[in-house]
């Protein structure tokens, strides 16, 4: 789904919640996943003027999970190591979004190219 404005955030979070409930993810993991998603969607809106998000159910052995892919065509992140550090922000903020989101999920992958955009993929396993 496309996310271009602030009012898209709550419906998006509800969609993620529906998927998580569908695979019977526990409440704490649901909350972690949605909070991580909230951080990433906020970054997308703030630094890249929005982008697209894909929500998928994935399977590994007996465990199900949710994979979220956040793709934007914004400015990209020039120093990714720095951006992943707690407390680093170019937006005069807390700089918690990326490192915090990473802590809240099981798999976290970020690809970015300056001038082209950023794609973040996260997976939260139902029992992870």
């Amino acid at each position: 789904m496309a996310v271009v404005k602030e009012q898209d955030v709550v419906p998006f979070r509800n969609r993620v919640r529906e998927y998580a409930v569908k695979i019977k993810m526990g409440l704490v993991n649901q909350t972690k996943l949605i909070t991580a998603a909230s951080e990433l969607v906020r970054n997308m809106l703030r630094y890249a003027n929005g982008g697209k998000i894909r929500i998928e159910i994935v399977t590994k052995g007996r465990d199900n999970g949710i994979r979220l892919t956040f793709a934007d065509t914004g400015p990209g992140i020039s120093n990714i190591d720095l951006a992943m550090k707690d407390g680093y922000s170019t937006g005069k903020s807390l700089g918690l979004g990326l490192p915090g989101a990473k802590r809240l999920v099981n798999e976290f992958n970020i690809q970015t190219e300056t001038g082209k955009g950023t794609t973040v993929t996260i997976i939260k396993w139902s029992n992870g």
Partner: protein
Amino acid sequence: MDKIPILKMGSFLLVTIQVDLYDRLALNLEADLIRMVDKTGAKGVLIDISAVNIVDSFMGRILGNIASMSRILDAQTVVVGMQPAVAITLVELGLPLNGVRTALNVEKGMALLQSMIPPGSGDEEITEDDHISV
């Protein structure tokens, strides 16, 4: 529609957040609350977030702002009813809720506020609203 009601109870302000806040709504609440604290001289602010499923860094920051700005205006802030899953998530996210006191529920929050306020500084006789008969 785009407003969270703020209730005045004696020298406290009570806010119950019943919807998932999007950013504009949260920012409005912050501004409204600060204005109310200033206008009414309230000594305490109680924010009930028991219906809130997600507190991300943005929302956390708003709560922190409300607390620190209220403190400047000489009012204490207590957040009540945080869901356990939300609390666990906040710790892992790494968000410090600086200066935000928490309590289990509204009653306990009220008691905490009462205990934080030095005696004689609030208008204890006023209970329901701001009508004062002289």
